[in-house]
């Protein structure tokens, strides 16, 4: 009994993917997944998802960002909402903000963030509010 909503998880940790999948499928979302940016991009091209949950650090420190920028610059995909999964606040504290200055200065490619490890209820409420927003014609 699918909601018909297609969510793509791009994340290199299989256990995390699995957890997210279980949580999302419990609310009848259709979940696809990819373990790296390249594979993820292929899946997007295959079928445009309604929402992407994207990990930042995969094989490189910024693989997730790279993909997010690539999508933003492509008119066909720029409107897909993306939740960026990140230990971002943690990373800020560790590396000092200067590391992210070059990114902070530019416009963000994504509008939603989710702290790692993802809290199931928070994830669901965020996903649902985004999907609802997508539903609303604008």
């Amino acid at each position, binding site marked *: 009994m699918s909601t018909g909503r297609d969510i793509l998880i791009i994340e290199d940790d299989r256990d995390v993917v*699995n*957890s*997210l999948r*279980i949580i999302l499928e419990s609310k009848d979302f259709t979940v696809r997944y990819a373990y790296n940016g390249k594979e993820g991009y292929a899946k997007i091209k295959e079928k445009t998802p309604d929402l992407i949950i994207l990990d930042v*650090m995969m094989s490189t420190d910024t693989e997730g960002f790279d993909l997010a920028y690539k999508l933003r610059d492509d008119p066909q995909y720029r409107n897909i909402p993306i939740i960026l999964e990140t230990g971002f606040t943690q990373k800020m504290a560790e590396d*000092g903000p200067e590391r992210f200055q070059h990114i902070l200065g530019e416009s963000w490619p994504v509008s939603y963030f989710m702290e790692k490890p993802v809290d199931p209820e928070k994830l669901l409420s965020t996903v649902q509010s985004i999907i609802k927003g997508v539903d609303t014609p604008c």
Partner: protein
Amino acid sequence: MKVGYDLVKEQLFFRQELKERVFWFIHLRWIGAGTAIAITWAAYLGGQSLPILPLNIALVFILFYNTIFLYIGKRLEAFRPREVRPFTVFAHTQISLDLLCLYTLIYFTGGVYSPLLIFVIFHIILAGILLPPLSCYLYGALVIAALGGLVVLQDTGILPLKPVLFQIHLLHYRYGSSGISIPYLTFAAAILISAFLITSVKVSLRTKARSLLDVSHELDLINTKLTALYEMVKEMGSHSDLKGLMDSATRYATRIMGVKGCSIKLLNEDKRTLRFASVYGLSRDYTSKESIDIEKSPINLRIIQGSPYSISHIDEKDYFQYPEDILKEGIASMLCFPLRAEEDSTGILCVYSDKTYRFDEEDTKFFSLMTDLTAMAIENLQSSLARSWFTKKAVHQIRSPLNAIRSMLKTVIGGYVGGLNEKQKELLIRTDRRAELLGNLISDILRFDHDIKAIKRIKFLGLNPSMILKQVVQLYQSEAIEKGIEFKTEIEEIGNTMIGNQELLDEIFSNLVSNAVKYTPRDGLVRINLSMKGENHILFEISDTGIGISQEDIPRLFTEFFRADNAKAIEENGTGLGLIIVKEVVDRLGGSIDVESKIGEGTRFTCILPLSPPLRLYPKG
């Protein structure tokens, strides 16, 4: 060959000597003339017959002009201290006047037979010390001629004969005979020999002084170079990125060696090509080559293999891969050394000059030292960067599975894979909290590593500590209100007077305020005071009515990873690193921190920080 600066320095040195001597003679004159007046009066009063009046007139005249000399000397020194000519003229005037007075005295005490004649020699010696050799001989000739003139004048009766001092009954004068020529010639010989001796000694002394000056000049140069080298090493050590370090190195090397430019070429990973990693003073055209193939550049190959190379004249074109570029750049000679890390060369440091034959042996030695220091600095930074990189990588590797564990736990706890009983759920929640604590600990370790590094290369600015503290207090206000804790703050307006770093100061305030809030039970009180202490320090005090710290725990408070048992009971997720960071920051800022506490009553931290940190902390530039 001496030019410009050296010559001026030498002149200054000798001019200084002339000036000192001129004043020395003025002092001697006071003693000489004063003593002479005393002796004449003593002899006169003792019943000796001597021409007291003319002698005293001459002697008083000496004292008189000596007073004027003193005045003129002081004026010259005050208004024209850098000119040598006035002092020379001054020396001539003194010697001439002295001789004139001395001859007056000689005339009145027996002319050619006067016992005072011997004093003329002293003046020749003085002229020899003060003035060039020629002047000394001229004075010699002048005094010999003057005595001759006196003899002639007395012989012809133009000047009356005077009796010889203390030998009033004997008139020795028999002019025209050979008798007179003996004392005269003896006198002339004594004068000329004195002039000869003194000028010879002086010439050799001057030569020695000159070589001494040369040595001191060389030492100055070496000292300047070494100081600059020290600055260079210090500057290189302050960088946390390789490019910055190498840019400092090339800039300093160019300046210290006094050359056109400098470059660092590093060996690429393929070990077969070199790239320009940092360049100073050379054109973009010259350094824009993608890479230099060392197989095609025999010189670079030899340097990389370990032998330094000095090229005095760029005409051996076969040595270079791009000889025409070197000529076009205006490089006439260069000095290149391998940057060695242990056994292997990792690159090449080169200095370039637009003059041929620019580098001598000294330059080569010095540059070799500079190259080794640069190589060490690069090596040092590289290994520190590698360590940081490794720490970061390791932390990420630890955190990934931890995040996966927690994701899965949360999925289970959330009941997404089937229901749990209360006991199971509670245990899993506790498991998740312990995993969270582990994550915090990892973050703190990395933050600690970062903070310690940050402290070392922090930039200092004018800060307003009152404002920073107020912001921190505001940040914790809501948490305090939630717990019913009252904040009592007394924050003196200190203004923008502190030289420091916002992040560091923030670190101190935040850690202490957050601890106070964390470890103070409901309805407690936290007092926060900030005030000036004396003119140069600020005093930050924070006290709470919290759980307190036991006496035996206090000394361990600022040591790594320590957490008191009662603190653990209240806040599970602490790592014990906060106070270590506070202590480290306070130390680095040159301040002090103290703690007083009583179990169950509360804790008071007293922190004193200087308005300007110790000088050693200022970053260069």
